[in-house]
């Protein structure tokens, strides 16, 4: 959809709406481990997700190019960027990852959005005074 103001050419009002055309999706995830003292670096986390993908979807799944944009070691939460067409594959492999080094674990998907900006705030954690 595109609308232009014809009367004033210097300041043109333009509205662009993309229909399902965003190339990437962003996921905010959190890893919950049985033993909370376990430390996990960013590389470990990516390798862990990658092995999960490889188990579930084989070499084709392991070829998905996803990125760990941001990672916080204390809370074990991170931000993933994944091509939109592989979102379902990544999400399902995250769901099926149940064990990290013989201890039970689970991935919590906190937020998913095609726009990175929408992950800055979370309405579920809003505190109303």
């Amino acid at each position, binding site marked *: 959809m595109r609308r232009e103001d014809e009367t004033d050419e210097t300041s043109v009002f333009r509205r662009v709406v993309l229909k399902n055309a965003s190339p990437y999706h962003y996921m905010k995830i959190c890893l919950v481990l049985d033993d909370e003292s376990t430390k996990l670096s960013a590389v470990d986390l990516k390798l862990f997700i990658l092995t999960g993908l490889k*188990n579930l979807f*084989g*070499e*084709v*799944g392991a070829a998905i190019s996803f990125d760990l944009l941001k990672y916080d070691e204390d809370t074990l939460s991170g931000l993933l960027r994944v091509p939109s067409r592989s979102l379902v594959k990544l999400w399902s492999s995250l769901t099926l990852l149940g064990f990290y080094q013989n201890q039970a674990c689970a991935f919590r998907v906190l937020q998913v959005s095609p726009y990175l900006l929408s992950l800055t705030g979370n309405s579920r954690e809003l505190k109303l005074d």
Partner: protein
Amino acid sequence: MVRVKSRYLLCEINVPDRSRLFLLDDRAVAAAVKAAVARMHGDYGAALCSIRFSVKYLNAHTGIVFLRFPKKCYRLLWSALPFITCIETRGQKIECFLNCLHVGGTIRTCQKFLVKYNTQQLHRMLPKCKSEEERSQVREAILKCCLTRGNKQEFGEESDSEDDEEQ
């Protein structure tokens, strides 16, 4: 009336040494396909492959094989076929690759295509015969095939009954 739909892949097994084709059996081919799918598509692919996949027909003389896949996911399973480089049978490894000739909805269409394809190949190869001897050899071979026409008829009827089952 509904029926369970499948896709039949008519594939040709290419081997460096044709005499080793006789070692093949359908179970070995099925195992090779399943292993390739499991490697490329992991547990998900292996699960898809376990539902209605089967090797319907294997001709050890010509190396022609019919694979049946569920219609829903045949493209995904098909994509794993080029990664088959060898088939293990009776403790021996046969180096080969699969060449897909035709994709059909029933065995009957695949059979029709195969007959047409073989005729085409024959027309391509006959003019290349150099001596009269070779030509007569080819003619003899064709005549031999005609004698086993009865087998072919049986095979056709088999595919018909297959269609009936699925309807």
